[in-house]
């Protein structure tokens, strides 16, 4: 036995009814290190960290922190022990100001709030000290996601922590913002703090962490110094087998134009301009990517293309036919498929069985329906076929789709849409919230469609996803396309600048790169 570590979590078990989220986790974290916690979605990272910060209590096991056992009944007690967490879904209240959020839950409830000035001053001091631009009087709902995250981080620092936990902090940031965050983590460690950093992005983990622990199936399966490992080993540990880091891609030359969008504008549901005059084409046999920080009009663009959001102006031509202005059911009868952004809201109906989810758009068409009656034999056969071809893990076609994991739900959605044999395939977030195994499979299927000559538009906030399968990437910012970039990881910085709306800087970078090549 060496010296007692800063933090030791021993044999942590957590069960939610029959579901086992932690199956005997052991984790050791040393003082003043950045410890990355890596794992696929559902591996149990968030649950473990929620136990550590007092949100959840473990079914079994114990935590030793700074040499003494830690029993937490609530997040308040965690804060008292100087443990703070920045949650993946922000814990700031949108209708309050930054300063109000910082005093929320502190002091007696009957207290009259008089010291807001003092709070604001302290926020300004801290914001200056850590180089985090946070305005105490701003209302949260007026802030961008990146700003809200700064507010969150500073809130934890405001209450004073020695151990800072961040859950997937870079998921909502541009590459530049992510860089700044990673640099901040280094500063915090230099300042004497210890950081646990949850991620499923290998490159970040490699770049910023001192040590890394990999979780799989509710257990830590591997812990090592980051310098002594490599992305391939980490990926293998995450999945439990070797994964293809780069998918083999067949070279296809784009054919005729399938989708032509001209000067398309539309408003979001609040009536504010969301898409502002975009024009682009998607040809047979190509995958066009749309990159951007979420909330820059990508969702509205997708909805407008399938007729779910009326276009304010512009034209959308599919195989030469104007489809702008058609109803979504009319568009549904065109050779167009849509894999929506949020499968729970738009892709599937959770309590319904797989069979009924498979025929959601085609329930009234042959062969699934005949004279107004559903033909269950055909439907079940078709569902079975999709389950087999896409390796969907389901006990039987009549099972409610909510019993499936996210990855298997998405596989079924992709299977359903591809089975319609469309000319144009619109995909919004292909791999969001699904594991590496499923990611690989759906990406390969989409690449196969491209080889078959389909035209594909892939909207994604995950640059890795775009790099993996796209032929070219359009970068969207505030409803416009700021530029087109080839899917070359060397151009990451340029894409990042475009995502942040900095076209001039991106152009300069591009020219410089061009000059070096020449």
């Amino acid at each position, binding site marked *: 036995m060496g010296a007692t570590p800063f933090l030791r979590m021993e044999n942590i078990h957590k069960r*939610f009814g029959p579901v086992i989220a932690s199956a005997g986790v052991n984790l050791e974290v040393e003082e003043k290190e950045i410890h990355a916690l890596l794992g696929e979605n559902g591996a149990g990272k968030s649950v473990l960290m929620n136990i550590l910060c007092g*949100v*959840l209590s473990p079914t079994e096991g114990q935590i030793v922190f700074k040499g003494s056992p830690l029993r937490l009944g*609530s*997040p*308040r007690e965690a*804060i008292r022990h100087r443990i703070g967490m920045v*949650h993946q*879904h922000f*814990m*700031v*209240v*949108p*209708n*309050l100001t930054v300063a*109000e*959020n910082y*005093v*929320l*839950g*502190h*002091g*007696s*409830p*009957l*207290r*009259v*709030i008089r010291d807001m000035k003092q709070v604001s001053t302290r926020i300004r001091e801290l914001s200056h000290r850590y180089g985090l631009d946070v305005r105490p009087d701003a209302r949260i709902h007026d802030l961008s996601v990146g700003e809200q995250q700064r507010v969150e981080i500073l809130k934890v620092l405001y209450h004073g922590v020695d151990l800072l936990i961040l859950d997937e902090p870079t998921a909502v940031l541009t590459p530049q913002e992510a860089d700044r965050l990673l640099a901040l983590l280094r500063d915090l460690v230099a300042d004497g703090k210890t950081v646990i950093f949850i991620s499923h992005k290998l490159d970040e983990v490699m770049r910023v962490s001192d040590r890394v622990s990999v979780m799989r199936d509710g257990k830590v399966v591997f812990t090592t110094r980051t310098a002594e490992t490599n992305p391939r080993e980490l990926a293998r540990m995450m999945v439990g087998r070797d994964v293809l880091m780069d998918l083999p891609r067949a070279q296809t030359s784009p054919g005729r134009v399938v989708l032509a969008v001209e000067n398309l504008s539309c408003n979001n549901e*609040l009536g504010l301009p969301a898409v502002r005059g975009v024009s682009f084409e998607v040809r047979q046999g190509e995958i066009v990517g749309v990159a951007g920080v979420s909330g820059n009009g990508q969702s509205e663009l997708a909805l407008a293309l399938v007729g779910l959001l009326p276009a304010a102006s512009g034209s959308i031509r599919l195989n030469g036919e104007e489809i702008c202005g058609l109803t979504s059911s009319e568009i549904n009868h065109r050779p167009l498929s849509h894999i929506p952004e949020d499968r729970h809201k738009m892709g599937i109906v959770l309590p319904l069985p797989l069979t009924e989810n498979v025929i959601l758009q085609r329930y009234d068409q042959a062969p699934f329906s005949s004279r107004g009656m559903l033909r269950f034999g055909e439907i079940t056969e078709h569902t079975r076929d999709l389950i087999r071809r896409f390796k969907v893990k389901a006990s039987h076609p009549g099972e409610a789709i909510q019993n499936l994991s996210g990855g298997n739900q998405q596989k079924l959605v992709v299977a359903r849409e591809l089975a319609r044999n469309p000319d144009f395939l619109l995909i919004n977030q292909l791999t969001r919230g699904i594991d590496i195994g499923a990611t690989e499979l759906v990406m390969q299927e989409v690449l196969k469609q491209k080889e078959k000559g389909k035209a594909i538009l892939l909207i994604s906030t995950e640059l890795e996803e775009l790099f993996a399968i796209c032929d070219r990437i359009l970068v969207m910012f505030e409803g416009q396309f700021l530029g087109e970039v080839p899917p070359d990881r060397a151009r990451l910085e340029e894409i990042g600048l475009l995502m942040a709306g900095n076209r001039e800087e991106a152009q300069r970078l591009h020219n410089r790169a061009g000059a070096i090549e020449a």
Partner: protein
Amino acid sequence: MDDIVTLGFIATTLGATWRLAAPLVYASIGEVFSERAGVLNIGIEGVMLVGAFAGFATVFWTGSLALGLLMAVAGGALMGLLFGLFTITIKADQIVVGAAMNLLGLGLTAFLYRTYFVSTGRGVEIAPSLNLPGLSDLPFVGEAFFRHNILVYGTLLVVIAAVFILHRTSFGLTLRAVGEHPKAVDIAGRSVALYRYGAVLIGCSLAGLGGAYLTLGHSNQFVEGIASGRGFIALAVVVFARWSPIGAFFVSLLFGLFYALQLQLQAQPALHIPYQALQALPYVMTIAALILVRNRVDTPSMLGVPYRKG
């Protein structure tokens, strides 16, 4: 027509406006508390009836106005406790429980009234007008603003107190957060359930007080269903006022004006409008207001959504 709109008519109408707005002010500001914390209580009509009856019965038996008001508040709070038990602790659907509260309030008060009072037919003494020396005798403004009873003046106190509590105390801050992002409050270490109970109890106590105004400040009798939809109008007032107590006060006055106008106009034989049409005025305006006001920005995000930990 010119004999209708005289200075006297205006003064009387203004005075009546405030008086008729009073129950709405209490009920709607109460509902602002409840809804700000994320609890939609459509049962305040029933709560008002309980308040109206409890206040009436207490004054009938004891003759004490103060005790009557106290019992009205207690009756309202008791209804609130029941509502909270089902919606916050048991997490039943707020609309269904709210509908049940209305039926309970109507049925219970009618039953008790018929059992104990229907044969007596005797009323109670209503809250006396507090005529402020000097001010009440001023022409016009005296009639409009200074010849009211304590419950009418009390509406001002309630607005000020509500603004102070919601915006100047730690309790109010947390309450506003509970309706918007309960999980954040939970993580900040406060009990979401406790705050929701607090908000519902405040809401129902005020609704009870609003009900008591009907029997102790307005008419001197209890009548079955005496709230006659005011609880529902208060719900509309809250939406119209965008969940602000000051807004709720002024919107209540607006509805009070419609009530006052329909009463005043009924008394004008020169106007050949059927009185039923005039009586419908406040209700028509409620529907109109709800059609006109469509906003999602101010609506507490978690309104009507039970909070589950974890």
